[in-house]
C-alpha cells in the first residue's frame, strides 16, 4: 500500500513539474529582481556596491535565461539605471548597447535606449554627445514615443543651463512639430498623444495662457472630433489645477453637450461631480 501511495505521489509531482511555463518562470524572477531593485533605489544612500551587484545579478539571470522575453529589455534598462546611480556611465551605456543589439527589431525599445544613453551623457556633463544621440532618435526613430519626447528633454536641459534662447527655439519647433502631427492624422491615437506632448511643452515653460489659447485653437479647428474632446478635458485639468473649478466645470459641460450619450460625456459628468464635491469640501 505504501508503495502505491509513493508511486501516486511521484506521478502527481511529475505531472505538476511538467506544467511549467517559461513565461511564468521569467515573471517570477523578474518580480523578485524588481523587489530588490526597488529596495536598493528607495534606500540608495545607504546601499553598498554589493547590494547593487546582487540586483544586477538577478536581472542578469533573466537576460541569460530568457533573452527574447518582452520584459528582458526592461531588465537591461534597470541594470543601466543601477550603473548610473553608481556613476558608472560607460557600463550603463554598454548595457544599453547590448540591449539595442538584442532588440534591434523593436524600434520603440531602441529609441528609448538611445534617449537613456543621451541622458547618461548629459549627467556626465557631455551635452554635445547627448545631443548627438537625441538627434539620432529624432531622425531615425521618427514615429516613436521617445522621438516626441526629445524636445522636452532638450528644453529641460536648456532650463538647467540657463540657455533661454535655445529653450524658446526648441519649444517653438516642438509645438510646430506636434501641430503638424495632429493635422496629418487628427483621428489617430498618435494625434491625441501629440496634444499631451504639446501640453508637456507648455508645462515646461509654465505658460498657462499660451496652453489655453493653443487648446482653444484645437477646439475650433477640429469640431466634433476626439481632438476637441481631448482639448476640452485638458482645459478642465488646467483650470482645476490652477484653482478655477467653475471654469473647469464649464469645459466639461461643453463635452457633455457636444458628445451626447457617449462614454466621453459619461466621464465628463463623473468629473463634474468630483469637482463639485471638492468645492463643497
Amino acid at each position, binding site marked *: 500500500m505504501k508503495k502505491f501511495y509513493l508511486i501516486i505521489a511521484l506521478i502527481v509531482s511529475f505531472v*505538476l513539474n511538467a*506544467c*511549467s*511555463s517559461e*513565461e*511564468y518562470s521569467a*515573471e*517570477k524572477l523578474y*518580480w523578485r529582481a524588481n523587489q530588490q531593485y526597488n529596495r536598493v533605489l528607495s534606500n540608495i544612500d545607504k546601499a553598498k556596491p554589493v547590494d547593487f551587484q546582487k540586483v544586477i545579478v538577478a536581472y542578469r539571470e533573466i537576460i541569460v535565461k530568457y533573452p527574447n522575453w518582452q520584459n528582458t529589455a526592461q531588465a537591461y534598462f534597470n541594470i543601466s539605471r543601477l550603473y548610473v546611480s553608481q556613476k558608472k556611465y560607460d557600463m550603463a551605456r554598454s548595457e544599453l548597447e547590448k540591449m539595442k543589439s538584442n532588440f534591434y527589431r523593436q524600434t520603440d525599445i531602441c529609441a528609448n535606449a538611445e534617449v537613456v544613453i543621451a541622458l547618461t551623457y548629459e549627467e556626465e556633463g557631455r551635452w554635445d554627445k547627448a545631443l548627438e544621440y537625441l538627434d539620432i532618435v529624432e531622425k531615425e526613430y521618427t514615429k516613436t514615443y521617445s522621438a516626441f519626447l526629445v524636445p522636452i528633454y532638450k528644453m529641460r536641459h536648456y532650463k538647467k543651463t540657463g540657455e533661454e534662447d535655445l529653450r524658446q527655439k526648441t519649444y517653438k519647433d516642438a509645438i510646430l512639430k506636434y501641430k503638424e502631427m495632429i493635422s496629418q492624422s487628427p483621428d489617430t491615437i498618435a494625434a491625441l498623444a501629440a496634444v499631451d506632448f504639446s501640453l508637456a511643452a507648455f508645462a515646461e515653460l509654465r505658460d498657462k495662457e499660451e496652453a489655453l489659447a493653443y487648446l482653444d485653437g484645437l477646439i475650433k479647428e477640429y469640431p466634433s472630433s476626439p481632438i476637441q474632446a481631448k482639448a476640452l478635458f485638458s482645459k478642465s485639468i488646467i483650470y482645476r489645477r490652477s484653482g478655477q473649478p467653475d471654469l473647469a466645470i464649464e469645459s466639461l459641460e461643453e463635452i457633455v453637450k457636444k458628445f451626447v450619450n457617449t462614454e466621453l460625456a459619461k466621464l465628463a459628468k463623473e468629473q463634474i461631480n468630483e469637482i463639485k*464635491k471638492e468645492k463643497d469640501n
Partner: protein
Amino acid sequence: MEMRKNLEIAKSSWKLTFKTLREYPRISVPFVFSALAEVFFLIILYYAPRYPFSAILAPPIKTFVGEAYLHYPLNFILLPRLFYFAKVFVWFTMGICAWAVSSNMVSQVQEGRFLPSIAGSFNRVIRRYPALFLFALSIFILSLVIFKLPQFLVMKLYFLPRGKYFTLQSFSFISFFITIAVEALLIYIVPSIIIERQSFFGALKRTWALSKEIYMPTLAIILIPRLLEMGVFFLKQKLPLIMTKTFPEITLWVLGADIVVSFLTNLIVITLITDLFLIKQGVEKEI
C-alpha cells in the same frame, strides 16, 4: 441556574466528542476526502496560468477579470477568489455529504457499534441528498446575504461623508459572527435528516424546536472551533497586504491553512452537534 445547566451540557458534549474522535478516527475520513478535493482544486487553480491547465482556465479568466491576472504575481491576487468558487462547489457536493456521513457514523458509535461504517453511512446519505442539498443551499444563501448585503449597502452609501460608517472589513467580521449565530440555529437539520430521517422541512421544524431549548449551548459549542477559523479569515482579508510585505506564494500557505482549519473545525462541530443531538434525543425518550 439555566446558564449552569447549559454549561454542563456543553461540557459533556465536548468530552464525549473528544472521546469519540480519539477512539474512532475513521469518523474524520469523509472530511479527509472533502479536504483532498479542496487541495486538488487549489493545485489546479494555482497552475491555471500554465499549460496544460491554461488551455481550459485561461480564456474565462481573461474574459471575466483580465489578462493581467494570468501573470505573476497578480495570479495570486485572484487565487483566493477562484478558490472560493471551488470551495462552494465542494460544499454542495462532497462537503455536505461529509457532514452527513460523519454525523451518521457518530450516531452509529453512540448506538454501540464497534466499527462505524463509511459505506453504509454514505449509502444512507446519498438517498437523503436532496434534503441535504436544500440545507447546503440555505446555508450558502444566508451566508451570502449576511456577508454581501452590508458590503453592498456600504458601497451604495460610499459617497456620503466618510468616517460615519464602519469600514468594509469591520462589516465582514460582524457578518462572520452573525453567520455563526445563524449556523447554530440551523445546524440540527443535518442530524435530523440523517438520524431521524426527516424531510428538509420536517428537519427545519425539529431544529427550530431544539433551538428554543438548547440554542445557547449550541452557540457556545460552535463558537470555540469557529473562532479558529476567524484567524484564517483575518489572514485572508489581509492577504494583499501580507503578499506585498512577504512574497506572493504566501497566498498558497494561507489557503492551505484554510483547508486544514476548515477540516478540523467542521469535523469537531459535526461530532459535537451530533453528540448533543443524541443526548437531547435520549433525554426526550426518557421523558
